């Protein structure tokens, strides 16, 4: 049975410790969790930050509408760039994990909540290219699409993360 969409958002934020930073991180986290066996029921398509789900975007509205999670904004000191912060609302009560019933998945959330969003983007994109687009040479393709974003050791970090999670293409290589 598929879980209600707002529960997916609520449980991810809860498993992260009640607070999760950045919409990009939320999207990539949900994608990777689904690859690890979580069953959000969401559909993903490729966007410029890698796999992205409109269903999850709509679920964020539902999570707010049903009073589970609140989205607020902060700004990077350097240039004022805005980013989202999701926080569980007190009235949501203690989380009853069903979508993230497996404690290992909750540990993954805790771990990934602290990973740089660009590294997460690269990890999710590499997985998407290898598993969904069946790219013959996913490494060339990710560098073509992401340019310098994939440099400075970030792609290596993303591969390390996928290896840790046991996901292709890193796991397939290892």
């Amino acid at each position, binding site marked *: 049975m598929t879980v209600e969409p707002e529960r997916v958002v609520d449980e991810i934020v809860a498993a992260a410790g009640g607070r999760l*930073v*950045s*919409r*990009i*991180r939320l*999207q990539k986290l949900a994608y990777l969790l689904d690859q690890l066996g979580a069953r959000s029921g969401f*559909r993903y*398509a*490729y*966007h*410029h*930050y890698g796999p*992205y789900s*409109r*269903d999850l*975007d*709509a679920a964020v*509205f*539902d999570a*707010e*509408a*049903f*009073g589970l999670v609140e*989205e607020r*904004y*902060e*700004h*990077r*000191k*350097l*240039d*004022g*760039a*805005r*980013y989202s*912060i999701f926080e569980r609302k007190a009235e949501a009560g203690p989380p009853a994990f069903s979508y993230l019933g497996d404690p290992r998945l909750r540990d993954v959330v805790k771990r990934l909540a602290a990973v*740089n*969003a*660009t590294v997460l983007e690269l990890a999710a994109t590499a997985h998407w290219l290898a598993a*969904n*687009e069946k790219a013959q040479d996913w490494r060339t393709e990710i560098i*073509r*699409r*992401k*340019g*310098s*974003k994939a440099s*400075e050791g970030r792609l290596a970090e993303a591969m390390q993360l996928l290896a840790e999670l046991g996901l292709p293409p890193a796991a397939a290589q290892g």
Partner: protein
Amino acid sequence: MSKRLRDPVHGLIVFDVENDPVDRLAWRLLDTPEFQRLRRIHQLGVSEFTFPSAVHTRFAHSVGVFHTARTLVRVIAREMRRNDEAPDARKAEVALIAALLHDLGHGPFSHTFEHVQEARGARKRHEQWTAEIIRNPAGRIRPLLEAFRAGFAEEVAALLEREDPEDIYHAVVSSSFDADRLDYLRRDKLMTGTGAGGIDFDWLVENIRVAPIALDAPDGDEATPRTVPTFCLDRKALPAAEQFLLARYTLHEQVYFHKTTRCVEAMIGRLLAAVADAASGAGNAVERTGLPAGHPLLRFFGKGGETVENYLALDDALIFGSLDAMAKAADPVIAEMAARLRDRNLYKTLDLAEFGADKGRQASRQRWIEKEFADKIANGRVIRDDKAAIGIYAEIGGDEDRMHKRLHILDGGTPTEISRLSDLIRALEPKKPFRRFYFADKADRDAARQGGRPR
């Protein structure tokens, strides 16, 4: 002798084919079958069902984008000299031709077709089709580009495929002030006839500056981000910048996400999905779809049919011209959708905003309708549309805008995101969803409207 086109947005667009090699190349590209196809794809897809004059094409838009790109290339040269740097003529040539060709890969009804393909598990987006059409050795575009300069086709395709900028010339095709945006905002406003959404184009262009911005998306970790030069605005243009973002916001709200337009898109999506099923499944596709054997839709959706050649045979005109034939299809969904679209007998819309602005109330009503009409949602007699949303920094489709697409103002010389400086823009930061249902039967719509109300 130069060549001239008249344009309702830009006036006279001149191609100096004798003296300017880029203009000469651009003029030749217009005559290729791949570019001429854009005359048969409406810029705003099915918006003409709502705004009858919005029948402008991707051909006219692309020419306008090329013209605007020339302005932006001059701005780059001006600003590089201001920064004691030398402009790069070769990169400018790539950017200009990329601007002209950026829409080659759009399918019929653009994003609607893309969503149908997405639902079928096809992974190729219009940007990838564009690059493939440019690189196609059997096509008419590539030889012209290679005759201009060896390796030029690859340079143009690669620029359009790149998701993030590597230098300032990328800003011509992708930035907060890219040529695409600067053309479509003005053209769509003019052609729809909407009074909202004007922009102060000359003042904006006069105040464009080139400065390095942080490229990495902010995620709260305050790590040192990579930087890249892009278009920013002098602080004097802050009011014009606010107006520019509001124009984009307003066009989304009033035109692109208009409930009737979205309803027609959903109906065309249902029609094309049913044709794709018939073409790729068992049974007699000709009988099931009403389309003649060898019709481009049957070729494309048939097994192994997703080739560049078959893709280029698809356009809006082909599909509208096939509605009458499809109205006689054996498949009841194809027959009904085609006949309804031909005669503009549309599904009836229920916008959840009718229940009030309260998000909780809207979400509860949505759940009630989903439960009450579950069977009809499953068989397509009721269509749910809850995936459209607009924020001042959300791209079409809903994902977060990339950093180089956000608008930066030079605040004391430092590029600063506009929402930091403008209360007006900050007020529009939260994303606003559009939640609708479309009903085949008016009685169902009326029942949903009544039943969904508080008792």
